[in-house]
């Protein structure tokens, strides 16, 4: 994983297809995607429901494997990895933020943030230190002992972001991170993501429905019917 060189892209998709079901029932979710994302980018993925953007995110997040095509992550062919190898890849290089937060209930914010570190075998001392740092970075200093049910949606999503960045990932995969939040909270979350992108050079790939959220990204990819829509070429989103 230490082969990042100047001319290599962090993420490289070539001819990715994904088919669910078989024969005449086959559903072609992705029909041949080519995509390159470089380290430090902030990419927004947009498109109507069923356009294949979620499927693409799952493949990018190493949660799913493509039916055909190649996915190189840091030069590694993800399609050839076993289930466990992909889990290890996620554990070490990927952070996830979900629309529904997916925090563990009845578990304190700090313990939620520490969770990925436990699987990485960090010592208790290191876990606490890095967990508190991550909470501080999302502006929740002092909230570590609260459980998700005691916190607002915005605060819960901040914890989820803290959990994603605590491992200092290469890429943060955000699946509609502001989908359940009001506009004020959404802006705060987006600013937080921008800060991580700019200050820590964490690559961010974010699925969103809202154009105003997509504007925070530097590049927007439009999905339509399992393909990247060439009508709206990717370009600088933010002015």
């Amino acid at each position, binding site marked *: 994983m230490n082969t990042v060189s100047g001319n290599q892209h962090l993420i490289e998709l070539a001819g990715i297809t994904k088919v669910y079901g078989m024969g005449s029932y086959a559903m072609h979710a992705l029909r041949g995607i080519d995509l390159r994302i470089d380290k430090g980018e902030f990419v927004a993925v947009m498109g109507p429901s069923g356009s294949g953007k979620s499927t693409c995110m799952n493949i990018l*997040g190493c949660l799913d494997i493509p039916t055909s095509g190649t996915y190189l992550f840091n030069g590694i062919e993800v399609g050839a990895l076993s289930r*466990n190898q992909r889990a290890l890849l*996620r554990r070490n290089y990927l952070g996830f933020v979900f629309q529904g937060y997916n925090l563990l209930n009845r578990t304190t914010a700090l313990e939620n943030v520490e969770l*990925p570190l*436990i*699987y990485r075998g960090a010592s208790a001392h290191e876990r606490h230190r890095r967990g508190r740092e991550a909470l501080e970075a999302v502006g929740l200093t002092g909230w570590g002992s609260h459980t998700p049910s005691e916190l607002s949606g915005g605060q819960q999503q901040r914890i989820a972001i803290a959990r994603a960045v605590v491992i200092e990932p290469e890429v943060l995969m955000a699946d509609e991170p502001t989908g359940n939040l009001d506009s004020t909270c959404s802006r705060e979350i987006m600013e937080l993501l921008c800060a991580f992108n700019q200050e820590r050079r964490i690559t961010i790939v974010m699925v969103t429905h809202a154009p105003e959220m997509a504007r925070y990204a530097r590049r927007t990819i439009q999905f339509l019917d399992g393909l990247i829509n060439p009508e709206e070429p990717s370009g600088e989103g933010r002015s």
Partner: protein
Amino acid sequence: MIWETILLAFRSIRRNVLRSSLTILGIVIGVAAVITMVTLGDGATAQVTADISSLGSNMLHVRPGQGFRGPGGTRSTADMFEVGDAEAISREIFGLEAVAPAASRSQQAIYGNKNWSTSIMGTTNAYFQVRDWNVESGRQFTGGELHSGKTVCILGSTVCDELFGDQAPLGATIRLQRLSCQVIGVLESKGQTGFGRDQDDIVMIPLRTLQRRIAGNNDVDAIYLSAQEGISTTAVKKDIERLMRERRRIAPGEDDDFHVRDMQEIVSTLTSTTRVLTALLGAVAAVSLLVGGIGIMNIMLVSVTERTREIGTRLAIGALEREVLMQFLIEAVVLSSFGGLFGIILGLLAAAAGAHALGMPFVLNPGIVVIAVAFSAAVGVIFGYFPARKAARLDPIEALRHE
């Protein structure tokens, strides 16, 4: 890696106190029920066995009439024995330890202003030997007292307590109806028989005294005898039957007008009763264990369904399938062990309390403890593990989408 997993398991148990305690409760109830029931059943069996041995397992008795002594009916038709019958048995039957002729009457025993209705038994010192019954204080009858029918008596401990309370009974004179009787001894306590009769509610006087001064005849109601160690009571019983038929001139083919009963008969009646009792308790306990097992199963299944999203989250952030599984397995093992432990403690306490309340001995059966705990632990682990395995094998995307 294993420590992290144990840590995760303990965190998970701690943060779901209600679910964890419900799971534990199922195991606790199952284990405690089985241990209590079986321990009480074993206690009852031990009690009965002890009662039988308090009667003397090598003891036989001969009574006139057939079968159990009915209310009068059988008695009137058959002739009573006399002392000569006892002497003949003693002389002619091989392998006897002691032979005691006895007769009894119900009578009031009076001392001072105390009055106690009891049974008066006239017999010889051989009776104490047959019953393996010692005089706790004082002495047995002397040969002279027995021979001449002196008015002396030996009290059972119940009668002694009722009449004398804290006073010293020895040397005192009690009245048995019109008969004044000097107390020369007090018997040790025998407790109740297997049928619930108080064996200590008795006053012993020389047989001749009873015959002459109370009954007014020479009848002997029963002959008690004990076989020597290693002599079959069944063989003795046959010999006595033959001898008594001869003495009572019963023609071949005619029914006996007396009955020889050995303890073997009583033992088998009682043991079969307690065996049924223990089986019944065992069945009830098995049902409790089953219900407890179903409780564990339900909670484990519900909790895994509820936790599918959690499993999805863990898988997404990079947990391996086996790490998630190991966590659930450890949770199940820890919960089952705690439940088993509390169940043992609760079961033993309940059994001890029950045994105390029922006046039975507390008999610990380690086998049933092992079985109960093994069953509950197996249920806990199996139903904790297999649904978790199903969830851990899901695609993380599927698990995350789970509502």
